[in-house]
């Protein structure tokens, strides 16, 4: 029964190809999203340090 279900009358490749790729792009989207968030937080922290440096260097020159 199982093989029948997956074969889908000989068109399994097409149907499963559709569903699997859909699942895949969804996973890719989620992964990219997590990456984006993590990078944003990272840059935020870096820039906080940088901004501090700039204000410090401004104070020291003026």
């Amino acid at each position, binding site marked *: 029964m199982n093989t029948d279900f997956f074969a889908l009358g000989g068109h399994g490749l097409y149907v499963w190809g559709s569903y699997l790729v859909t699942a895949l792009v969804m996973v890719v989207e989620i992964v990219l999203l997590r990456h984006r968030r993590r990078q944003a937080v990272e840059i935020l922290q870096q*820039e906080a340090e940088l*901004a501090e440096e*700039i204000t410090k260097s*401004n104070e020291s*020159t*003026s």
Partner: protein
Amino acid sequence: MSTAAVLLETRELGARRGNVELFSGLSFAVTEGELLTVRGPNGSGKTTLLRMLCGLGEPSAGSILWRGEAVAAFDTALRQGVIYFGHATAVKDELTAIENLEFGLALAGLPADNAVVEEALRQVGLYARRQVPARRLSQGQRRRLGLARLLLAHQPLWLLDEPGAALDRQGLALLAQTVAEHLLRGGAALVSTHQDLGIPAARARELLFQ
């Protein structure tokens, strides 16, 4: 003279670029006949301020008033009353000095009568090269072309960003004289500079950044 009308006023003006605050809480007024020199180290925000005042770019805080009324970026009233002369000279390489000046004046809403244009070119020392395509002009000659436009401008407020750049001694003298005459006619000027331009002015103030 103390009752001269206020042309431009800023209230608690602030600018940030990226996540750096360039300046904040900047309040000043420019009245007719007044020269305001903006000074400060490289990257302190002089150019940013001038561009903001002429309507290129919005302040991050505070407001700008033109003749007492608040104005937004690209405001019509500002566009009629202000001339901005910045790093970019707006000189077209393909056009001759004469054509450049004529089109430049027309764009600034100023009459561009031929005789007057030639006289202005003579004053800035470009008369001999008036028919040469601007691509062949030297760095200083291009700046002089911009100076020629100022000679003929009658907008009440001039915003000049490092107008002395690339000018030789005689060019600097001409610049100083042009601005001084503008002030005498009741105009006002905001000038950012690193050099000493030596502009004679009845009322001159300095705005110091950092």
